[in-house]
């Protein structure tokens, strides 16, 4: 049982890392032939970094558009971040101080995460416009993430899992020398769903995570008059015309 999970976890990690790397490489390789930043846009590279920082950390554009969606999705994402940081301790032997410090917040961030997902789910059902654009997978993602959060909270607050054993299992996973995974339901549900999440991530709309960094309307400097911007295929087109 533990070996099966260890294998699954390794496969899922590989799929996630390689899948994402391939997508990112693809995005990076496809050229953006024209300058299309949504203006008013920064006129320097530093400005672009700041703009992207505000987008990624504060969801600036979403804040401008829909306050409810912003509240719920920010709660979810921030909660998720804290929870993930808290989880780092399961994968390292001597835990870094920042991770130590985050532990108490991480515990409760799980509630924010689940509440945020709940809010997004309710919006998806009750706002007619959002319902119209939703495919089954859009609901399923929220449900999947919700159950991951819920099962995690169960372990923290209701049925305590033997986390020492869990840690042993994960730190030893690469060598197959780790301990046995404790057999209790919330933990198995939790880990199974996380594996599903990792397997599907590179093939799903969760690609918005790397995608945002490649969005030309957000990541381009507004300087087309100052600097000529030309990509290889456009350059080739030009050369061909000359001949």
């Amino acid at each position, binding site marked *: 049982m533990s070996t099966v999970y260890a294998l699954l976890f390794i496969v899922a990690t590989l799929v996630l890392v390689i899948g994402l790397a391939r997508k990112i490489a693809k995005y990076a390789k496809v*050229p953006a032939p*024209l300058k299309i930043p949504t203006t008013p846009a920064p006129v320097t590279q530093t400005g672009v970094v700041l703009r992207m920082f505000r987008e990624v950390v504060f969801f600036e554009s979403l804040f401008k558009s829909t306050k409810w969606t912003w509240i719920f999705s920010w709660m979810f994402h921030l909660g998720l971040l804290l929870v993930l940081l808290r989880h780092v301790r399961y994968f390292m032997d001597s835990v870094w101080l920042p991770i130590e410090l985050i532990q108490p917040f991480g515990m409760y961030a799980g509630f924010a995460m689940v509440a945020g997902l709940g809010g997004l789910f309710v919006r998806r059902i009750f706002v007619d416009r959002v319902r119209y654009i*939703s495919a089954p997978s859009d609901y399923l993602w929220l449900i999947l993430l919700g159950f991951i959060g819920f099962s995690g909270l169960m372990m923290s607050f209701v049925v305590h899992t033997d986390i020492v054993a869990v840690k042993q299992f994960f730190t030893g996973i690469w060598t197959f020398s780790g301990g046995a995974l404790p057999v209790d339901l919330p933990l198995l549900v939790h880990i199974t769903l996380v594996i599903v999440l990792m397997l599907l991530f590179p093939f799903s709309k969760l690609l918005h995570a790397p995608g945002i960094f490649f*969005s030309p309307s*957000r990541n381009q400097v507004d300087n087309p008059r*100052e600097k000529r911007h030309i990509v290889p295929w456009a350059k080739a087109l030009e050369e061909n015309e000359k001949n």
Partner: protein
Amino acid sequence: MAKATFDTPELQEFVDVPALEEGTMAHIKSYVVNNPDHNTDLGFPGELVDDWHEKTLEKMADLCSRYRSFQVYLDACVKCGSCTDKCHYYLGTKDPKNMPVGRQDLLRKVYRRYFTFAGKYFPKLVGAEDLTRETLDEWYSYFHQCSQCRRCSVFCPYGIDTAEISMAAREILDSIGYGQKYCNEIIAKVHKIGNNLGLPGPAIENTLEGLEEDVEDETGVVVKFPLDVKGSDILLVTPSADFFAEPHVDGLIGYGKVFHEAGVSWTLSTTASEAGNFGMFIGSYENMRRVSMRIRQAATELGVKRIVFGECGHAWRIAYAFLNTLAGPFDDLDPNYPVPQHICEFTNDLIEQGKLNLDKSGNDDMTITFHDSCNVARATRMGDKPGGQFEIPRAVIKAVCNNYVDMDHNTIGEKTYCCGGGGGLLTDDLMEIRVKGALPRMTALNNAIKDHGVTHLAAICAICKSQFTKVMPYYGMDMDQIVSVHQLVSNAIILTGQQTEEDEDDQESEE
């Protein structure tokens, strides 16, 4: 053509987000190219090809490899819904396929079906659908109901820009021979004659001579409107509407007066007698480039040092953001000035230097508000600071008129509502969508009229001006309530040596 019948939406105090009503705009379909030459002149098949299914997918793969925006935008959407109430066409028509994400999904569901793992094996789960003949018709209908105004891209957490998707969709349709008559006919005209309206050189010359006479009659000063004058300092490129219709032509008179007072030598060109570039509307880099090259060529032939663009929205986007890429580099021009410059930048510089003698009372019969044209606002800049595109036109207007108020702040600047006629929609067969799409802008304007006594709407885009001229009467306003910014400049400017009314009075009393 039978006049289309539809109800003009009634103006309310606010634009409420409507409950969606499927298919209200499904019947809207602009004319398809009926003269195959208009497709082939642009490098596309004359009519819908037999192997359109295969060709469509080939083109999509091609776009995936050439445009990062296409690939990333199709993948990244999470269906959060934040764009759903941002499109003026949705607000005016209630049709969910006019919601930005609804419109994109028409293409995205096909992309998913053929280009993604999930869509290939679990199409129902992720909302992927097969490409059918009906899909093409739906694309044709709804992607020609997008003015590519980019309002949605402001509000999307990932900056997904429906303009990019609708350009791509139109390029795909063109590549299989399913082009739109309005856009393609115009581009063919530019390639052949040199401008969108198909005005030949002599007609332009004639118009310019007429303008010289008008200005002289009015002011007593000879202001030249030169055409094809070699060795001029400045090449002015302006939309052909400026030679042709009200209120555009009043703007052109304004530019002429400004250049005259600046004491610069300038010229228009018959080969580059069009600022507009419909190549962008159909997403065709090649056509955009071909249209842009005329300007480059004219600049070289005339030996000018600077290029200035007249009032136009999408044209300014191509000029500002793409010209250097498409037709550059412009190393042979004067490096002290940006290439190209917007006429508002030019005029504003003169105003700041105190070189224009302005009498604001020339516009005292009007209370003005300003319409930020979509592509100027969200796709370009003026001056050297972000947001200059909002400040500079307003600075010009405020320098030439006493009565200025802004419309509701949620409807201007980067959040501006589109006029409803841009992006290749300015054709009579799309009147219904144009009128309904103008609802949010008309609402904000109507409020400014009621609350602040606004009488006129000033704009710096030829399409906005043409669109408002047509659409305002549907909402109980007058077509001449839309004015050019440089028309206002023209009204206020006192030319050197110009006889003022006071001078005339003095003369009369001396006599």
